[in-house]
């Protein structure tokens, strides 16, 4: 892997994020910057990445580790290029979330929590995503996929395979 370092462009974005908080409160930028770092450095936060973010924000590495390990969106281990996050909480369960997970498992030949051998897909079950009226659903990167049926899942997986990646959370558009 190349050196853990943001491009000039990204540094500008980081600086503008830091400027949203009062003087000396640059630590507030930590979560937004970790989102960017995760997107830019392979979809997860290695200790190199976290140390780099710590140095950028002039805080201690431990302050980054403790935050990265607290929040469920930060991956401390590598995941597939497309992370299929199925909501399995009550309202979604009532409307077929378990069947959706089973279908994905059969289609991809992996269990929930695992990654396909080609590193393309990871299935993960997550808690309520604020999409309970359009269950069952899954989130892949930034996009919500709602009211899912087996046919819609087939089409989604085909599309993701063709594109080779998910839409990043931090894309500007």
């Amino acid at each position: 892997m190349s050196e853990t370092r943001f491009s000039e462009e990204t540094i500008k974005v980081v600086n503008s994020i830091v400027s949203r908080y009062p003087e000396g409160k640059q630590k507030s930028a930590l979560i937004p910057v970790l989102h960017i770092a995760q997107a830019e450095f392979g979809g997860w936060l290695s200790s190199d990445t976290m140390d780099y973010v710590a140095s950028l924000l002039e805080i201690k590495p431990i302050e980054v580790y403790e935050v990265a390990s607290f929040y469920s969106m930060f991956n401390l281990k590598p995941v597939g290029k497309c992370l299929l996050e199925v909501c399995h909480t009550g309202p979604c369960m009532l409307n077929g979330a378990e069947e959706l997970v089973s279908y994905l498992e059969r289609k991809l030949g992996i269990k929930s929590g695992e990654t396909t051998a080609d590193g393309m897909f990871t299935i993960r079950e997550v808690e309520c995503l604020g999409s309970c009226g359009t269950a069952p659903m899954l989130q892949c990167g930034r996009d919500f996929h709602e009211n899912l049926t087996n046919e819609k899942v087939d089409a989604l997986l085909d599309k993701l395979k063709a594109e080779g990646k998910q839409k990043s959370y931090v894309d500007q558009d």
Partner: protein
Amino acid sequence: MAGKKILLEHIDVPGINTYEVYRKMGGYRSVEKAIKSMSPDDVVEEVKKSGLRGRGGAGFPTGMKWSFLAKPEGRPRYLVCNADESEPGTFKDRYLMEKIPHALIEGMITSSYALGANTSYIYIRGEYFYVLRILEKAIAEAYANGFLGKNILGSGYDLDLYVHPGAGAYICGEETALLESLEGKRGNPRIKPPFPAVAGLYACPTVVNNVETIAAVAPIVNMGGDEYAKIGVGRSTGTKLISAGGHLNRPGVYEIELGVPVEEFIYSDEYCGGIKNGKKLKAVVAGGSSVPILPANLILKTANNEQRLMSYESLADGGFVSGTMLGSGGFIAFDEDSCIVRNTWNFARFYHHESCGQCSPCREGTGWMEKILHRLEYGHGKMSDIDLLVDVSKKIEGNTICPLGDAAAWPVASAIRHFRDEFEWHVNEPKLCLERNYGISQKHEVVM
């Protein structure tokens, strides 16, 4: 009672997500009115008169909360919008922000003016990143049109507004955890006092309000607090966004005038259109996963046989013995075939996952409840487990730093209160219950 729409009045107008159309439909009038003709205290007064109560779950009177804000000389004050929306069953804030982002931006400006905040933040759950981009675009439009930035409308009032993402943690919806998170820390709730009104963000006086609460401030300023207070019923003034999900024919977000009968909300075609597949209603969780579940008879009518209304008071009628709470307005309907034990286990798993781990009763208790419910659900329960669950829930309730502990205890205690026979059935007929619930899916292995 035909639905009065205030927040969603223009939801179907094409392009309402843009500044142009929003403005043409009367948007940003509250900012003009407040800044040009009212003092900040006048705005607070109108909000007090309106009777508006917090839409994030607790229902605390907004005007009163605002009047508690400390105003020490020479220190900034902050308004922080709570857009963390993670209470299972709740998706109204996402809907409002996505469809009419300017409604929140306008509310933020008018409210910030009232509170004397010059920097305000919208803390949005990280999973809603696409909504964050929508809000950022709306904010850029508001700056471009002179409603944000320096010297707004030539008044000398300055305001900067930023959106800040979380990263997946229900607990960050709790206001002090949210502030910790906004400071770049783990979302561990703070011990109160001090309350945020005195020492909140960066230890400065801070008001935290829900998206819907803040959005409601604009129409309140426009129509006047007294006028707003005429809408609704009793102390439940105004309208409320309800997120309807579960086994309903027409799930989705509905704006209701507070006081609509629950029965009408579930069955009329104006709202949810009845239970899916022609089935019967078994139970309802009326205000998000944290509030007590009620069986069909008690959600439609109170214990005194009065019609139950969608209002703070009516839903709470009967206390926790036979009532529940309006909460965040996450309305989940369960049909006759739903398994209450399974759902209770599902919610217990949620709270266990989301406990921040600071207090032992919550950290350990939520784990125990999940484990016991799992064993009941998967056919390994004992009769004594049922009372053990009640006991654990009682030991959590009231013994924790933040209300997540209570929120974890109530669904369990209420499910047993109202559906004890179903828990007993799981103990007596483990095979039948496994067959009923898992004939369809064999993926879960029983891990003891």
